[in-house]
């Protein structure tokens, strides 16, 4: 009998140790919030009275901005990589619910870098029709050349060469040499510390002007629409890989 009691006590202690070990490994949560701006000015849609200006000086207002983000990863200062979310999210500036994400079970500690794809990985572009975030019904899918539109911006500018001043920047396509998928990699100026009490807030500022400068400054009079991939889409993608996102962390 005492053998049994001792065995049970031992197992109980082991259990306790295991639970103790769990809380010691310190998983926490991080809240990621997408904040949309044009340079330093908050994004207001459809406002034809308060115009934004791109790097070239063209004025415009925004009527649509949607983009896919996938394979979000955080890099630990000691070398490990944590997958925050592999599957894509679709952010639509008309849907505030798509701005905020809470991720759980992230190890506490120091992180020096973040990376994610702006778009949807190549393989998914070749797969069967998807449901949910990747449903073609979301309007981010080309039917004439199979594949996702990774980022879509529409607006109006007096400098546009399209009817009614419309601007159309639909960036997609994965066939070489015009693969517009971009991986954003950002090293934090100061490494961030995810603490155990879970008030970790990472704000990702999405600056729409980031489409229009960087590798090449865009003049709407010369380029006010790209909807078929190719070279012009690559230019915009190269620009926004550098300049679309900045990061603020607090806890």
């Amino acid at each position, binding site marked *: 009998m005492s053998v049994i009691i001792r065995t049970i006590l031992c197992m109980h202690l082991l259990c306790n140790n295991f639970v103790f070990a769990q809380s010691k490994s310190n998983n926490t949560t991080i809240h990621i919030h997408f904040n949309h701006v044009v340079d330093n000015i908050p994004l207001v849609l459809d406002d034809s009275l308060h115009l934004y200006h791109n790097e070239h000086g063209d004025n415009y207002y925004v009527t649509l901005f949607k983009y896919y983000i996938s394979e979000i990863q955080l890099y630990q200062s000691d070398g490990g990589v944590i997958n925050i979310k592999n599957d894509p999210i679709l952010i639509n500036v008309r849907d505030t619910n798509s701005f905020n994400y809470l991720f759980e079970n992230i190890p506490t500690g120091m992180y020096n870098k973040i990376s994610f794809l702006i778009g949807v990985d190549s393989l998914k*572009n*070749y*797969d*069967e*029709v*998807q*449901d949910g975030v990747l*449903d*073609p*019904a979301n309007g981010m*899918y080309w*039917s*004439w*050349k*199979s*594949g996702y539109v990774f980022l879509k911006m529409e607006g109006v500018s007096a400098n546009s060469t399209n009817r009614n001043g419309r601007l159309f920047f639909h960036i997609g396509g994965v*066939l070489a*040499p*015009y693969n517009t998928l971009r991986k954003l990699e950002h090293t934090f100026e100061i490494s961030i510390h995810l603490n155990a009490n879970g008030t970790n807030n990472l704000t990702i500022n999405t600056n729409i002007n980031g489409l229009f400068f960087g590798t090449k400054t865009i003049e709407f009079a010369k380029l006010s629409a790209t909807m*078929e*991939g*190719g*070279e012009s889409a690559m230019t915009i993608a190269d620009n926004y890989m550098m300049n679309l996102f900045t990061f603020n962390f607090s806890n």
Partner: protein
Amino acid sequence: MKWIKVIIILSLFVFVGSSFVDRLQNLFIVPFGFPTPAYDFKKNPVTSSGFDLGRHLFYDPILSKDSSIACDNCHQPFAAFANIEHLVSHGMNNCLGTRNAPPLINLAWQKSFMLDGGVNHLDKAPLKALLDTCEMYSNLDTIVERLKKNKDYPAMFAAAFGSDKINTQRIMKALSQFMVMLVSANSKYDKYKRNEPGAAFSQMEKEGYSIFQKNCESCHKEPLFSDYSYRNNGLDSVPADLGRYRITGRPEDKGLFKVPTLRNIALTYPYMHDGRYPMLYHALAHYTKNIKRSATLDPIFIQNGKIGFSFTNDDLMKLEMFLKTLTDTSFLRDKRFAKPKDINYRNQIYF
């Protein structure tokens, strides 16, 4: 009492089990002598309920903006699912398209779809027609709403997919289950190859076959009668329609289009991507008289510095007779592919 419970439970198993088993089957059969299909049946096996749903969707004009156009407007079953007598097809508001509608034959063996190969999976192919403002001019949210409100479709989706949820993915999978079954492998040529009684080739047909094998086989490979590659067959020295180039952006792809199948070719007139040749004879004569040089002309047409094939009129006649042996009447009349009777066709207009 116990026996009644057993009977009830067994009946439930049979009821639930049959739809479960239904979804485990795959009704698709690879014909004798055909290669392995490219379509991934593991992700979408053909079941009788899925096929029937796909058949209904294929013929149902509510998939178009004002319910006037169904898939069979441009893909007519009696024409091997091509659009006879139309160089290009008409869409919503009588909008004239730019390319000849291809027949829907043996699609399970294709890896890419459309004349320029822009679509990389069969499930995605109908999206082009559904959404294009010059074709059916619809949108996916509207289609899903209409199907949900219809008195019959929710039950059909439940039978095919296990629940009555209706979404883009299921609509496309059902359409694929119908389209992959459009297999043509029973023409006089097929019976001749299988040595079936009553399928002997005449002397002319044999000679035509021989001419075909010497000159056409490289692109129009048996038994599919296409290698599904992209080629410029010399229609224009400066192509108006840049074809594959629009998809790849590579200059060497300008004016290239997919090699079409020759099965049922006698029925899918007019010919070429813009329907410029009204009769089979003109399409064949193209290869002797009409090939135009360009930077992207396929090298197969240049032999010993000479362009085109040196067919005599006699050769052309024999070739045509051979090509007519590719007509598969069992395919054209297959009742499984016929238009359902229980759809509201009131607003459909055939142009």
